């Protein structure tokens, strides 16, 4: 099993450009999340999804969009990139149900620089 796979690993974006960070998981997890981690800081939730077709905002959604057309994929779109979006982005998934919470399984992250 690959777990949670994120692409790309690194990217440099110019101010005002747009791009999509890809995330896919092969564990059949129902919940998926996008976090950002600024240098030396903790994790902030951007968006999350409870299943295909359902997404919701986290703490810091401005400047981002998501979609969840399948259980496996949860791409994060940056529109009109700004320097404040320079960060490391982590995608994660979890299986949540009557049996409880599985731990969050994280991808290896995408290091994004906006200049």
């Amino acid at each position, binding site marked *: 099993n690959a777990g949670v796979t994120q692409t790309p690993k690194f990217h440099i974006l110019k101010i005002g450009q747009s791009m999509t960070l890809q995330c896919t998981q092969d564990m059949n997890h129902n919940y998926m999340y996008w976090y950002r981690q600024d240098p030396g800081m903790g994790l902030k939730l951007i968006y999350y999804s409870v299943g295909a077709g359902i997404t919701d905002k986290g703490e810091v959604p401005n400047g981002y969009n998501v979609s969840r057309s399948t259980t496996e994929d949860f791409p994060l779109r940056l529109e009109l990139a700004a320097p404040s979006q320079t960060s490391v982005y982590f995608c994660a998934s979890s299986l949540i149900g009557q049996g409880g919470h599985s731990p*969050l399984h994280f991808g290896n*992250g995408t290091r994004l620089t906006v200049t």
Partner: protein
Amino acid sequence: AQKVTQAQTEISVVEKEDVTLDCVYETRDTTYYLFWYKQPPSGELVFLIRRNSFDEQNEISGRYSWNFQKSTSSFNFTITASQVVDSAVYFCALSGYPYNFNKFYFGSGTKLNVKP
């Protein structure tokens, strides 16, 4: 309110010392889950342990041990005989039912430096 506090921003120890990382939580959920993650300098986030609120048994895994105390709302992590490879940022996280079942709340992390 749902909150995780890791008051220790950074800790430095010499190899072979024992070290305890503190985690204090606040929750109104009746059933909740606590987690510890390790983030080594390479950047990935590695799951270490999950603890359910109804199971207060302490856990030991090799040099790692976890002390869960509901009375003080704490879930502390101890590394015995620390090694340089333990150098990382450690995050404590919380989720639960019925109010916060779809979110994980993270502490700000504790950076552990283990010097040879």
